[in-house]
């Protein structure tokens, strides 16, 4: 075991994969000599060389498209989008080429796309988004969103070993704020949900940075026993774990940092409405960012992203229902 930040855990996973598997290569803008905008690949080029830690042209479609080509001839590319927002420029390659390839032709596309995502630091409308639902709506793409250092590492290994396109949502606001014990060496975290804290009166279902907001908001809620379910994987979505929490807790708050409409949480709510209705003892409550671009100025940004206070308030109201 070693104590690592979320960012160090991701770096460690990448480094170990590069050492273990000659098929693995990193591709992205400024990831080589510069070490990446967030320094996730800092020092990699010295150990692995410029071929395997590739500074690419500034072309997101190019990064994903060439990664697909390399993957179908036997490589295991790990692509960095400098900010998840920029994947809009490579969306076509991801959803139309990578996502449909196996279904159409039985040809696997083992690529991992790292997506530094999320807001909370005045990144503004183009450096703060949580675009995970874009990929959930597109068949053939797995979507992972770890909240802890341990899971960031284990899920990164799982993503790189997976024979499918995987979007790896790494929350920028967790990079250096979150620390934890991480086992040494390569291990895989399953693409299932995890109970971050068990409880019995209410469950908050969240993923990524919002897991920490949920834990803080419900740590001391007038003595209520509040469960926090960390989804970890959005595709596949752990339906059994979600319905199990609902059955035990009967009250549900679903928390998304993404924009409200058709967010991951909307899918979770739909699942509960259809398959968990009999277990509910109150309306399903959703808390998410309203449907606006993420604003720049701190008071505006704080007014949009779900806060500890909003979550606490939402939980209280539901507990009183």
């Amino acid at each position, binding site marked *: 075991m070693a104590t690592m930040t979320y960012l160090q855990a991701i770096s460690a996973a990448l480094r170990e994969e590069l050492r273990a598997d000659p098929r693995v*290569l990193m591709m992205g803008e400024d990831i080589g000599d510069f070490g990446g905008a967030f320094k996730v690949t800092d020092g990699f080029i010295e150990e692995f060389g410029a*071929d*395997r830690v590739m500074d*690419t*042209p500034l*072309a997101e*479609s*190019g990064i*994903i*498209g*060439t*990664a*697909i*080509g*390399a*993957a*179908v*001839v*036997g*490589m295991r*590319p790990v692509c960095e989008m400098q900010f998840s927002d920029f994947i809009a420029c490579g969306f*076509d*390659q991801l959803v*139309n*080429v990578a996502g*449909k390839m*196996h*279904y*159409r*032709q*039985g*040809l*696997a*596309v*083992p690529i991992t796309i790292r997506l530094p995502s999320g807001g909370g630091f005045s990144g503004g409308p183009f450096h703060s988004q949580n675009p995970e639902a874009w990929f959930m709506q597109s*068949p*053939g793409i*797995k979507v992972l969103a770890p909240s802890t250092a341990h899971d960031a590492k284990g899920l990164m290994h799982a993503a790189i070993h997976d*024979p*499918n396109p995987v979007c790896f949502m790494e929350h920028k606001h967790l990079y250096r704020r979150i620390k934890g014990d991480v086992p040494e060496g390569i291990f895989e975290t399953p693409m299932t949900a995890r109970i971050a804290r068990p409880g019995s009166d209410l469950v908050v279902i969240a993923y990524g940075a919002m897991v920490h907001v949920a834990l803080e908001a419900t740590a001391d809620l007038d003595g209520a026993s509040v469960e926090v379910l960390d989804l970890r994987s959005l595709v596949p979505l752990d339906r059994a774990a979600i319905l199990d929490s609902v059955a035990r807790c009967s009250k549900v708050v679903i928390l998304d940092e993404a924009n409200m409409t058709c967010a991951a949480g909307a899918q979770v709510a739909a699942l509960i409405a259809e398959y968990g209705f009999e277990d509910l003892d109150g309306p399903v409550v959703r808390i998410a960012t309203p449907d606006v671009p993420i604003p720049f100025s701190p008071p505006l940004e704080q007014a949009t992203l779900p806060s500890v206070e909003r979550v606490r308030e939402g939980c209280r109201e539901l507990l009183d229902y």
Partner: protein
Amino acid sequence: MATHTAPASEADVGAARHLQLDDRIWLLRAMLMMRGIEARAMNLYRQGKVPGSFYDGFGQEAVSAGGAFAMAPEDRLCILHRDLAAHLIRGVDPARIIAQYLGRATGLTAGRDGNVHFGDRRLGCVGMVSMLPDMMLVATGMAMAFKLRDEPRCALAWFGDGSTSRGDFHEAMNWAGVQRLPVVFVLENNQYAYSTPLAKQFAVDPIQRAAAYGFVGVTVDGNDVEAMFEATRAARQRALAGEGPTLIEAMTMRMHGHAAHDDMKYVPTEQVEEWRKRDPIERQETRLRSVGVDVDALRAAVQAEIDAATEVALAAPMPDPATAVDGVFCEGEAEPLGDGQAPWSGFASPRADA
């Protein structure tokens, strides 16, 4: 700019430098097979047996036949919807192609995708998507892997004149130029992107863009299969020699509508008639007849094969509806592309690519 005339090639006077007689017959055979299969499929479409619409490459057979013929088994191809001859050269069974058009379980995508949207992964081919220049980046990525692994192989992607307006065209050309990758880009200039003529597509002949991205651009008579072969062979040699990509602009003409539903009234009749005189199959037949090849016998053999393939395809079952949601994800090991057939006699000897 928009009034290119295809240059007469040296191959017209029998100067194909790297082709044996058997190779030249092979090329004609591939083009005849393509035209015959597509004609049959068009009939099946009119009989209501081909769902959706139907797309063909009538008049453009030389572009895919000549290009694919220059590629080795270990090379990798991204094939477009007017390039059926490339699939045939790589070794795809005509019965599976017709079954593909019919949406049958035995088609190359087992009914998951239609018409020429397929590639047999076991033969080193990646099926196209409808966003045509996307595959230029996939080919670029394959070439990138070959270079990283120091493998003497190359990738080839076909795309159309309309593709040159899309960002992925530029991203692929730039990427391949920057990294000096072993990739061949074949621009199939068939004068129209659906109804849009060249004059509305670009202000500069796209062949000039090759230089802008730092590599060689070659304009070829795309209706001369031997010239297409020679240009692609030379491009492949440059790629293997570490000299980077080549853009080949194959000048041709889309002789049919964009698809079966398109009467192409927007194309002047004189333009079609002008190009009809340059039919790639007639040209190759004339050459081969002049050296004593029994072209009629070849035609009859091809037709018999297509008839048999059609019978097989029509007898094949439709896909089981219960399988419609299967196979979205790969559940086992990722299996990379396999090697295709490469009938060119030059590949038969150990140093064939030299």
